[in-house]
């Protein structure tokens, strides 16, 4: 029998109790951690690499969406959101096949969510998890901002002169941000989207990692996982992990996992300095 290593996250103790009690009755579920906020959820996911996470959307500090944005797409587990009343979000989830449970939570919905997770566990690729959620978040943002155009069709400015610093154009709802490459800490791809993490904020951009790579400075950015790119300038700490894997501590809060296939990059980086 396949066991799902599961993390449950909710800022309300009673809601957490309820989830724990209900999930305990399901034999396929093995609760490995309980978290009270987004920060704890990110840490637990990095450490424990669970298969499934029950994630509340409304939370202090980093909310449920923020947790997913900040997690490297390679390690995002299957996600079931729990929420009280976000009609627009629910529609988006439906479209992008993100599972969710409405509060007040009923047992049937939990069982259905677990069932789906088990099925997905056998068939789907892991890397789809984040891209599903990111496209749902993108369509929620579009819904909230009906007036302006979406993030699609945004092309990068072609500055071949070399003197001008290359910037990445981000269209977030109604304002356009020009992100300096030097400010970007790390990037991960999620399907048709890339998440650019800079100065504690995660920007979502609709483009493929391959296209983005062409514009990035190859001296600065290195691939450390199948779909994760890191700005070497921001590496503060390299923490060895099991099985030849590493954790990179970037900036103040962010941590990125380096997979075995890419450990040479880190070795080079360490020997260069």
């Amino acid at each position, binding site marked *: 029998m396949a066991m799902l290593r599961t993390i449950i996250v909710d800022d309300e103790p009673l809601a957490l109790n309820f989830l724990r*009690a209900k999930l305990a009755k399901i034999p396929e579920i093995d609760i490995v951690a309980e978290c009270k906020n987004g920060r704890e959820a990110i840490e637990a996911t990095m450490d424990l690499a669970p298969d499934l996470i029950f994630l509340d959307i409304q939370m202090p500090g980093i909310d449920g969406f923020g947790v997913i944005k900040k997690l490297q797409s390679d390690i995002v587990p299957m996600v079931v959101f729990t929420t*009280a009343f976000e009609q627009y979000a629910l529609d988006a989830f439906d479209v992008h096949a993100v599972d969710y449970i409405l509060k007040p*939570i009923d047992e049937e919905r939990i069982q259905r969510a677990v069932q789906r997770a088990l099925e997905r566990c056998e068939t789907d690729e892991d890397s789809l998890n984040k891209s599903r959620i990111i496209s749902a978040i993108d369509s929620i943002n579009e819904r909230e901002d009906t007036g302006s155009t979406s993030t699609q069709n945004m092309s990068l400015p072609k500055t071949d002169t070399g003197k001008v610093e290359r910037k990445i154009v981000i269209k977030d709802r109604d304002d356009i941000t020009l992100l300096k490459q030097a400010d970007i800490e790390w990037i991960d791809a999620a399907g048709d989207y890339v998440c650019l993490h800079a100065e504690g904020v995660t920007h979502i951009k609709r483009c493929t990692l391959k296209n983005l790579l062409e514009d990035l400075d190859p001296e600065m950015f290195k691939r450390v996982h199948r779909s994760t790119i890191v700005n070497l300038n921001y590496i503060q700490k390299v923490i060895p992990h099991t099985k030849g894997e590493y954790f990179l501590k970037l900036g103040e809060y962010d941590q990125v996992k380096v997979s075995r296939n890419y450990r040479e990059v880190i070795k080079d980086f360490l020997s260069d300095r």
Partner: protein
Amino acid sequence: MSDKPLLRINKFISQKPVYLFWALQICFWSFVSLISLISLTLWYVQIDVEHLNHTFWQSVVGVVFSLPLYWIFMRCWHSPILTRVLISIASVLFISFIWTVIRVELYIELTSTDGLWADFGGWYFSSIFIYFCWAGFFHGIRYYQLLQFEHKIMLKKEAEAKSEQLKRLSAQSVARDAKIKMLRYQLNPHFLCNTLNAINSLIETEASEKAQQMTVQLSKFLRYSLDNNPDTKIALEFEIKALNLYLEIEKTRFGDRLKLDFQISEEAKSALIPSLLLQPIIENSMKHVIAQNEEGGTISLWADVVEDQLVLELSDTGAGTRVDRNKMKGKTSRGVGLRNIDERLKVLYVNNYEYKLKIGASGGLKTIIKLPVESIDVTSTYKQVQNSKVVS
């Protein structure tokens, strides 16, 4: 029975001005004939067909000659007053002269009397008075009618203006009610769903007493918030009881993340405030401080009566230091929900209130409300009793 035909005549005459004119003509000239009959025919004992005939016919001729006089009066009605007086006098003198000539001639013809022309002056004298009387009546009645007419128009206008004003007032009050209803607190569906989830959890973990307590608190709070008389004012004491219902529920949900610090003076407790005025402010603090902070925060309420004003100060400890830029953006939206309170106070107190928002260094929000002190009066006692039933 007897005044029924009279009423009918009256009704008939008042249908058209012409009918009234002719009715008055008949009355006037009949009266002239009557006076003539009494003062001349009977006095001189000349009771025969000829003299009676003359009395009758002279009136008929008089009626005929009053018509040109009517025409002249109407023609010069809008002329300057002096012209009118002169024309009127001249025409009265002229018409009565002709009438007198015909009267005398008629008398001579009917009674075959001679030497009457010597008395013409006497005849003319009385004629002048009769026509002046006629002219006097004519003007008097006409002016009276005009006055009546104007009065009627004025009354009608006044009635119209009154009903217009009534309509406007009722429209205004409807609009005001709608506005105030819209501005009034409405239960947050998030809160309801999350509370039910928490109750569900308490039942699951067999904390049935706590679950019951929470259910009762929720239903009391619901009842209080659904009572949607927009003008209800309530003693601060009861408003705080209602707030506590809500806050107890939130305490159960959030545990020790929610801390409270309430200081209400005895004097302030009995002062009236619009019901559920503070609820949106507290909910705002819950949403932006307690729910946003891993360690939670404190919501404080201070209330006292200062210089005949009820002063309410609500503050929270803010979202703390761990605020990233996205959260700061949300900070501005915090004002949107609170603007409704200002609007509501404006409707209820016009300019006789104060409403201030201050954002502190740690991002905490302080709301200061100053209202005129009102205490419980007779009309609201019933409401008070009801509300106190709900919340106590």
